[in-house]
């Protein structure tokens, strides 16, 4: 008998090797990527991006050690699949043939039925040692006239071979939600990813959603994406941080740039707090927000100004009116992010803000105005969730934030805060108004100042050559 220590040539049992999607955001949503040696379904109606998703994944996993196979069946002609992939940045012609092998099983399936696929699969595994297999479309095989028993046997064989061997498989298909209950491949799938396209006003919005991922946490919900030259550009749904990334008592004050206002709020806004400046059109919200931003630069704090109202030229003018030089501001850490409200896609703008904050250098942030985000959002609950998460991230990172929002009439009351959902998530609430009867008569009221004493009386202010001044 051999008295030697047993050899263990397996990967560590607790490791959970993954296959990257070739897209860092998709990997993040999937908790690191698809599990290796898994069967995955990518479902969605025609034109939702399934093929691009799969090809992006293939080209990023082509390392030359083992081939990656892309087999087309009955719905997607191979010539189209291969033809269009060349337009994307991830396409590398040198990978074709050896590393990535395309095959068309359409004729064989039409002639011999599903057996053509199981025979091909067994042969491919035995003779080519594939690392990844994509079958496009797997759903189309159900269109072959086969009985329920035959279908179950076919799925059992496909799943049997794919599970037995060290290969990761992707079954693409134009599946609907109803198909999830109907077709047995969903029961054997380790992951199900849905790509969808939904019309929103004058444009379409695309979403990726993970419906199932065995053995791993993933980020639930709809994640917006668009298709660009690099394939899918994803904007993972923002969620609030579970644990504050920086948990410290932020008692420092951030001057607002308006001495009278500083006095009203106890010396400035608390660091890491969020202030909503609400008011009617022309009440002075942008002026106050700009002064807050410029004060940040004066204090040596990097400041991001997100603007949907004025275009960059208009904003430069507004800055110049306050006595500052826009070009000089830029060299001192003033960043401007402008998006037209017409073209605004909430997911991309929120992710852009979040990425800037994540970089860790921004101390002050202004979003002028969140009403524009609300108008662009097709789903108000989604916007609310996004803003709530963003604000939690700001607080956790100590970013002091000012949001502006246009509200309805009402001289100084909270009743004017038509959208309570935005106001309750802010730490501080300031309401601006002007009088229709008395020209130039503007008022300011500190409605709420969380964790801080503040002036409760309505104040008056004016806007002059150097901005707002509390009387």
């Amino acid at each position, binding site marked *: 008998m*051999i008295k030697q220590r*047993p*050899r263990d040539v397996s990967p560590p049992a607790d490791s959970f090797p993954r296959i990257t999607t070739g897209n860092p955001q998709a990997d993040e949503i999937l908790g690191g990527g698809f599990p290796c040696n898994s069967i995955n379904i990518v479902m969605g109606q025609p034109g939702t991006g399934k093929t691009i998703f799969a090809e992006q994944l293939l080209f990023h996993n082509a390392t030359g050690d083992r081939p990656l196979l892309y087999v087309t069946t009955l719905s997607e002609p191979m010539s189209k699949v291969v033809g269009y992939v060349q337009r994307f940045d991830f396409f590398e012609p040198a990978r074709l043939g050896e590393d990535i092998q395309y095959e068309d099983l359409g004729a064989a399936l039409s002639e011999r039925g599903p057996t053509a696929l199981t025979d091909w699969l067994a042969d491919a595994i035995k003779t080519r040692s594939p690392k990844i297999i994509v079958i496009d479309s797997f759903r189309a095989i159900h269109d072959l006239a086969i009985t329920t028993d035959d279908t179950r046997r076919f799925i059992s064989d496909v799943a049997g071979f794919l*599970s037995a061997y060290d290969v990761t498989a992707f079954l693409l298909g134009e599946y609907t939600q109803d198909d999830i209950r109907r077709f047995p491949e969903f029961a054997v799938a380790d992951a199900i990813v849905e790509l969808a396209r939904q019309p929103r006003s004058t444009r379409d919005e695309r979403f990726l959603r993970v419906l199932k991922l065995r053995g791993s946490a993933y980020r639930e919900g709809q994640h917006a994406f668009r298709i660009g030259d690099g394939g899918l550009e994803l904007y993972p749904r923002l969620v609030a941080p579970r644990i504050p990334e920086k948990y410290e008592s932020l008692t420092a004050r951030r001057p607002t740039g308006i001495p009278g206002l500083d006095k009203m709020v106890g010396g400035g806004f608390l660091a890491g707090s969020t202030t909503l400046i609400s008011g009617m059109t022309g009440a002075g919200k942008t002026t106050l927000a700009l002064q807050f931003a410029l004060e940040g630069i004066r204090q040596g704090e990097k400041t991001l100004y997100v603007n949907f109202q004025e275009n960059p030229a208009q904003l430069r003018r507004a800055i110049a009116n306050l006595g500052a030089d826009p070009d000089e501001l830029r060299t001192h850490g003033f960043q401007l992010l402008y998006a037209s409200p017409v073209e605004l896609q909430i997911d991309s703008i929120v992710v852009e803000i979040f990425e800037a904050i994540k970089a860790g250098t921004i101390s002050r942030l202004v979003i002028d105005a969140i009403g524009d985000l609300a108008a662009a959002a097709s789903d108000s609950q989604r916007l609310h969730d996004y803003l709530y998460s963003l604000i939690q991230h700001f607080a956790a990172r100590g970013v002091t934030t000012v949001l502006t929002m246009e509200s309805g009439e009402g001289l100084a009351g909270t009743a004017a805060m038509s959208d309570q959902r935005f106001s309750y998530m802010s730490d501080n609430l300031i309401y601006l108004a002007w009088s229709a009867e008395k020209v130039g008569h503007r008022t300011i009221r500190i409605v709420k100042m969380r964790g801080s004493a503040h002036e409760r009386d309505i104040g008056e202010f004016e806007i002059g050559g150097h901005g707002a001044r509390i009387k």
Partner: protein
Amino acid sequence: MSELRPTPDGGTSNREGSAIILVVERDPHIRELESYFLNEAGFAVNFASDGLDALARARELQPDIIITEVLVPKLDGLALCRTIKTNPELQHIVILVFSILAVQSRAREAGADAFLMKPLAEKRLVETVREILLMRKVAGHSGDRV
């Protein structure tokens, strides 16, 4: 003697002069692939679909290696391992536990000579089999088939 092809359904396939492997596995797809890869590598492969059948075949065939899944009926792979390693007539047989379960330490306690975790990757499987056969030879149990 002419070469016989593998029989994934449980029969014997043999190659004159090659090491004999007894595979204990009930999954038909794994049997088919294991049979193919081991045969391609030059081994004679025999199959048993449960632990008791494997014990009987081990006595009859005196294989060089038993490759067993843990999850097999009647007598599980680890019990099979313990039974063989405590039987003076069979304990010389090398046992490779090849399982979907991460039971390295339990396999070691049961007396297994090697452990390999599924899924099947032909290079890993064939190399492991070759290495443990070599170890067996070095240890003085070469026989005349290796």
